[in-house]
Structures are given as C-alpha cells and as structure tokens.
C-alpha cells in the first residue's frame, strides 16, 4: 500500500489529539484525587455492602458484596428493559398499522395516542403513572372489596400486584417436553419446505406447530408426573390499619409504573417506524402480489413485511437503545435499577465516584452495543440477498 503524507498526517494529528485529551483528563483526575486524599481502586467491590434492596432477581441482602449489589441493579435494569421492549414492540406495531387503517376512528385514535405520548417528557410520565397509581390503587385490605382482584387470586394494591406463585413438581420433565416440541416443529418446518419446493403442496405448518407446543407439555402433565400447584397470596395484618399480602409473588408498583411508562412512550416512536416502513414499500408491490393470486394475508406476510422490515429495523434499534438508557430514570420512583442501587446507594456508601461511574458507563455501553449487534445481525438476515 502506498501512503502519502497528506493522507497520514491528519490521521496522526487526530489520534494524538484524542490521546492527549484523555491523557490530560486522567492525569488531572489523578492529581486532584491525590491532593484530596482519595484512593483509587476497585477493591471495594468485594466488601460487604450492608444495605438491602427492595426487589431483586437473585438472592441478595446487605451481607453480600458490592459486586452482588451491582448484579442486582444490572439484572433489574435488564428486566425492565426486556419487558419494556417486548410491550413497546407489540403496541408499536399495532398502533403503527392502525395509523394506516382506512377506519377513521381507529386511524385518528392511533394518531392521537402517538402525538400525546411522544410529546410529554418521559420523567413526567413516569411520575404521573407512579403517583397516579399510588393515589388510585386501594390499600391491601380494601383490594377485594373495591374489586381490584381477578378470580380472587390476583390482587392489585398500592403496595404492588400480587400474583399466585407457581409450585412445580418434576419441572425438568416439563422443560424437556417443551424442548421436544420445539425440535419437532423445526423438523416439520424443514420437511414442509421440501414438500413445497418439490411438489408445490402446502402443509398447514402453523396449525401443526400450535398443536405440538400445547399437546406435548400437556402430555408431560398427564403421563410425565409433572404437577403444578399455586400458592395464592393471603391477606395478613401487620397493625390496625396496616396490611400486606403474603405468599405468592409480588410485583412492586415501581416496576409496574416504570414498565408502563417506558413502553407507552417508546411504542409511539416504534409505531412511527412501522408506519414509515409499510408506507415505504411501493404500491406496485402490493398490486403485483395480489395479481398473482396471493391472499391479503399472504401479501402482508410474504411481500410487504419482508420489505418493510428492512426500513423498520434500523430506527427501531435506536428506540430499543433509548428505552434501555431511559430505564435509568427509575431512580426517581425507587425502582432499584443499576443507577439507583449502584451509582446511587453504593456510590454514596463507598464514595468511589470515579470507579462506580466508570463501571456504570461501561455497563450501559455494553448493554447498548449488545442490543445493536443483535439487531444488526437480524437486519443483515432480512436484508436483500444479492448474489
């Protein structure tokens, strides 16, 4: 390769400038920390955290380490992000399609929803859902009489949503039955494709798949010895006017409010991506597909969506990233996410600001890049295969 100086020099200057700026900040931080008698080090991660967290997916209390507290926060962030992304996507697709509906009412309602929710700051929406929920929901002792219950086993109260806990026997056999069903479905799909390519005959793969995924696990109950029972939440009195539900699983109102507000907010942007994607597919495509005798469902599934997805995926990836990062607003309403637990309480107790902020930044970076890689892979997979 042949490099001319005028190609290399600007590059070198840029690299040098970046190194110098970073070097200056590092050096400056070092000097300042030394002057103020602050030690630098990540040793604190193995120390006992000595604070408790409201809600955690793994076993944790104050006798565990700061690293464990970090994991608790990280998992809570991932939990709210994953649920938020799933709900936002489903809602976004529905609203996006609804905006193209010829039905005036559906169309305008979807448009109103999008304009309303995407134009109000997210933090405000989080506060609204949280405090509105707190004001509207009953105290645990009134949940039943005020009708905030479903089948007498789900209870929605100011202290959270209480649902029955699953108690499994022979859970492993149940899992094996699901794995067997998935394998069977994949085999049938491959076979169906071959049949269609060879004979032009279509096998109702969808119906067979649905049947398999239900029947095999059902068999595991009937003959596999799998048993499922429920532990129903029961009201317990703590003091004269103070009650909680015990047993079962409780989802804190903070989690519910945060998931709700994040999904409702992000769904508006995804809806716009979906609308843009569908409108971006040429009208001729649809007409051509119809003219060769495809049903409207097939037109959407085989012709429109594959092309629309190529337009929808990249901007939707951005929305997924935004949702994940926005979940850090959780700190405002006491949902123990990474920012509240680690960059909040742990930072305060240890005073290790630079260390903790750097770990938190690196973690969000890793989360975002993982989502990007996953979505880019999917985008490549559905892109036009040029030969």
């Amino acid at each position: 390769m042949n490099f001319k100086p005028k190609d290399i020099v600007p590059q070198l200057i840029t690299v040098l400038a970046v190194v110098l700026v970073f070097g200056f900040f590092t050096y400056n931080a070092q000097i300042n920390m030394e002057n103020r008698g602050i030690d630098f080090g990540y040793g604190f991660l193995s120390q006992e955290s000595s604070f408790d967290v409201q809600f955690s997916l793994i076993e944790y209390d104050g006798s565990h380490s700061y690293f464990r507290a970090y994991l608790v926060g990280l998992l809570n962030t991932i939990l709210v992000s994953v649920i938020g992304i799933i709900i936002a996507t489903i809602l976004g697709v529905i609203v996006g399609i609804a905006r193209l509906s010829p039905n005036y009412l559906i169309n305008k309602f979807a448009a109103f929803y999008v304009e309303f929710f995407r134009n109000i700051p997210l933090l405000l929406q989080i506060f609204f859902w949280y405090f509105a929920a707190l004001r509207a929901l009953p105290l645990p002792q009134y949940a039943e009489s005020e009708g905030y219950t479903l089948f007498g086993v789900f209870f929605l109260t100011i202290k959270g949503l209480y649902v029955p806990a699953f108690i499994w026997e022979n859970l492993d056999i149940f899992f094996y039955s699901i794995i067997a069903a998935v394998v069977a479905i994949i085999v049938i799909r491959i076979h169906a494709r071959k049949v269609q390519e060879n004979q032009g005959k279509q096998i109702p793969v969808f119906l067979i798949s649905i049947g398999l995924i239900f029947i095999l696990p059902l068999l595991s109950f009937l003959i596999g010895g799998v048993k499922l029972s429920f532990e129903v939440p029961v009201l317990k009195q703590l003091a004269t006017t103070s009650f909680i539900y015990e047993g079962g699983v409780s989802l804190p109102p903070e989690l519910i409010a945060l998931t709700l507000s994040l999904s409702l907010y992000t769904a508006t942007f995804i809806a716009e991506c979906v609308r843009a994607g569908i409108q971006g597919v040429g009208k001729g495509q649809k007409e051509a597909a119809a003219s060769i005798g495809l049903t409207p469902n097939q037109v959407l599934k085989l012709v429109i969506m594959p092309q629309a997805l190529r337009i929808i995926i990249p901007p939707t990836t951005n929305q997924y990233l935004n949702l994940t990062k926005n979940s850090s607003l959780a700190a405002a309403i006491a949902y123990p996410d990474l920012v509240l637990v680690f960059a909040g309480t742990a930072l305060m107790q240890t005073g290790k600001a630079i260390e903790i902020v750097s770990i938190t930044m690196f973690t969000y970076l890793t989360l975002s890049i993982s989502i990007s890689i996953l979505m880019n892979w999917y985008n490549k997979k559905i892109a036009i295969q040029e030969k």
Partner: protein
Amino acid sequence: MFKYLKQLTSLVAMVAVLFTFTTESMAAKKSKTLKNTQKKGFVRCGVSQGLPGFSNADAAGNWTGVDVDVCRAVAAAVLGDANKVKFTPLSAKERFTALTSGEIDILSRNTTWTLSRDADIGLTFVGVNFYDGQGFMVRKSSGITSTSQFKDGISACTNIGTTTELNMRDFFNSKGISYEPVAFEKADEVVAAYDAGRCDTYTTDKSGLAAQRTKMKNPDEHIVLPETISKEPLGPVVRQGDAVWEDIVRWSLNTMIEAEEYGITSANADMMKTSDNPAIKRLVGAEGELGAAFGLDNDWSLRIIKQVGNYGESYKRNIADTGILPDRGPNQLWTKGGILYVPPAR
C-alpha cells in the same frame, strides 16, 4: 523526573511558608479557599433541597434554617456580610462530590459525621450543629406506638445515599424482622409515597421526620415513634487539605454556641464590649487578637453574633418557632442539661 519536581515544589513551598510567617495575612495566603472566597465576594454553600428548619428556601428564594445559618456565620466572619452566600441545593447523592470537586466550599446539609466519611472520601467534619438520631414515623390510625410492634413484611420508605439505609438494615436485622425498603432519590418523593400509603413507615433522622411531617396532607395523622435507633451527629463539612478554612468554619459554629453560653445575643452584642468577663470581651472582639490566626480582623466573631445571632436564637427562629421540634432535647447547652459543649475561644 516527577519525583524531583515534587521535591523541588515542596522546597519552594517551605521557603514561601517561612517568608509568609512574617506577614500578617499569612493565613489568607495559606488558605486557597479563603482567598478565593474573598476574591469572589461570596461563600459557596451546599444545602439540602428543602428541609424545613435546616435549610429551606421560601417563595422569594431566601434560605433559612440552622444549617443555612452556619454558612451565613462564615460569610459574616470572612466577608463582613451574612447575606453574601450562594446556596447550592444538593441531593444526598450529590453532596460529597460537589464538595470534593470544588463546586462548593462548605457542605451544611444535615450530614451525619461518621468515621468512613471523615476518613475515606476526602472530607473533614468540623463540628456538630445538631445532635440527631434515626426514628420512625407511622400513621396514628395503625395503632403502632412502638417499634416493638413492627411485624414481618413491613415496608419502609426512605432516601438513598444516607446512613439511614444502613441503620435501617442493622435495626431490622437485630430484631429479626423482614422488611421491604423503598428508597427514593429525593425527599419529596419519599414523603409523597409514604403519604399516599405506599409504605407502613417512613424512616430518617428524627429532625427530618418532624420537619417533613409539616409537609404532609394532614400532619396530625402521623406520629414519630419514641425509639431512636442510631446516633446522628449532624454538622458542616469542608474539603480535606485546607486547615485554615476548616478552622474558620469550625470556630464560626463554635462562636454561635459559645455566645449563647455567655448570654450574648444579636441585640446586646455591642453592649457586651464593656463586660467585665474577659471571655465575653474576647468573643465580641474587645480583647485579644483571635481573628489574626485565621487572617481575619478582630470583629469577625462580633459580626457573626450581630448578623446571625447565637445558636439559641438560630434554633428558636428556625426550629422551635416553626413548630418542628420545640423541645431542644440534647441540643441544649451543657450548662442546661444538653450536650452542646464547645472548646473555649481563647
């Protein structure tokens, strides 16, 4: 090379110190913070985001409270005007970083003095302006009158980033009670959530409970339980490494407390100049050269007493008269059965 550079600088510094020993305003030269403060013309003070009685801003943006008065005292001492203070409201989470990064010069924000804070994170506590302890607030209607009635599953609202979270765990663990901690970043949300019924109890320093109670929809529906589960000596904090500034803040606070001990008030301070008691005369600047050690004039303490008042006046104005904690409890002078005791100004 850096090694030699360091030695060289310390040598230069030593020589410089030797020379400045002869000049009068040596302290001002030694204290970067004092010099900067006098240059800027105001004291940069970190306070809470609104805690009645301690640091709270009214609708016009005027800050009042016993924590605020410490900063005002320092401003009166070093700048001659108690109003030359720039207040920065800080959350519990932000406060230490704001101080160590140099954004503020005094942190007077109901901050508990603990070993790890004093030793670990580049801070120095200069004294105690309020002896507090953590307590619990519950609804009267719950019928709970003592923490011994707490049961498994109780939910407790509190702030993050405070000693409260740690004390709470120690307390519930020692009693063997399982609990649900609901920790918010800002006090206003804690109060709103507790008030709405999210939590069975609200826990923080007892002074804080008393102050926040006044913000509730119906303050009479809530009581603070008698038990105190921790020691919370609250006091002003400065950055480590500026001994003169540290002394100025410490003795501004001590002056207020000692003035009360000798009965010097904002009203009678000038008359006290002719007192027979040398201790009183020293405090109002009529005898001795106490200000010189800080690089200040001799009226520094007189200005504190005249413009801010003594500790008792500050307490009465901010905490007692506002109905937050009419009883001074441990925050009474040692001569009157409390534990306020400061070293003599001489």
